C-alpha cells in the first residue's frame, strides 16, 4: 500500500479529466492496482466511485461555461442501464488476464490519441478533421 502514490495519481487523473473531459478512470484503475494491490476487477469497480465525483465537479464547472445540455446528458445517462448491466456481467465473467490486456490496449489507444494531439501543430484552422 502506498497512499501518497495513490493520492498523487488521483490528482493527476482529475487534471486529465478536467482538461480532456473524461472521468479519469483510465488512471484510477492502474493506480489502484499498483498502489493498493487490488485486482483488475476490484480496481475497475472501485474506480467508478471516484469517476462519479470527477464527473459531477467537471460537469458543474462546464455548466458554468455554458457547455452542457442537461436534457441530452440525462437521456444518455438514463438510457444506459442495459449497457451497464452487460458491461458489469462481462467484466465479472472474463478471466482477469483478459481484462488486464484489454485495459492495457485501451490505455495505449488513449495514449495514442493524446500523442496525436501533442504532435498536432499549434492551433491552426484544422484542415478537415480526420474521421474518428
Amino acid at each position, binding site marked *: 500500500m502506498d497512499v501518497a502514490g495513490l*493520492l498523487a495519481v488521483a490528482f493527476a487523473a*482529475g487534471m486529465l*479529466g478536467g482538461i480532456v473531459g473524461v472521468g479519469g478512470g483510465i488512471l484510477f*484503475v492502474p493506480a489502484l492496482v499498483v498502489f493498493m494491490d487490488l485486482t483488475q476487477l476490484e480496481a475497475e469497480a472501485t474506480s467508478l466511485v471516484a469517476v462519479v465525483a470527477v464527473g459531477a465537479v467537471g460537469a458543474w464547472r462546464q455548466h458554468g461555461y455554458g457547455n452542457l*445540455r442537461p436534457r441530452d446528458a440525462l437521456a444518455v445517462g438514463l438510457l444506459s442501464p442495459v*449497457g451497464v448491466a*452487460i458491461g*458489469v456481467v462481462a467484466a465479472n465473467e472474463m478471466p482477469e488476464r483478459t481484462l488486464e490486456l484489454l485495459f492495457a*490496449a485501451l490505455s495505449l489507444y488513449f495514449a495514442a490519441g493524446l500523442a496525436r494531439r501533442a504532435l498536432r501543430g499549434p492551433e491552426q484552422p484544422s484542415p478537415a478533421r480526420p474521421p474518428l
Partner: protein
Amino acid sequence: MTGSDPLSEPRLGGLTPLARLAAIGTLAGVFSALFGVGGGTVIVPLLVLWLGYGDREATGTSLAAIVLIALLGAAGHGAFGNVELAKGLLIAPPAVAGVIAGTALQQRVPERAVSAVFALLLAASATVLVF
C-alpha cells in the same frame, strides 16, 4: 468550434435524436462498466458525429452523463462485491482537486504539452499492467 447548427446535424439512417442518445448511452454503459472508466471516450466523439455537437459542449454534456453511468456501474459492481468503497472515497478528494486545477490550467498551459505528458503516463501504466 462551439455550438452547433441544428440544420447541419448529420442524418443517421433516420434515427431520431432520442434513439441516438439511447445508442450512445448503451455503448458508453458497456464501456464504462467493463473498464471502470466514465465512458467519455465513447460519448464525446459520438455526440459530435451523431448529434452535431461542438467539442466543448460534447465534453461538458459527457461529464454530466458520466455521473449517472458511473453511479449505475458502481452499484452493479457493488452487487457483485467488487467495490472497495473506502478506497474509492479516498481517491475522490485529490481527484476533484485535480479537476479544478485542470480546468484552471487549461487556460494557461499549452494543450500540446499537457497531452504529451499524459500520453507518456498512460503508455507507462499500460506497460505496468501487461508485465
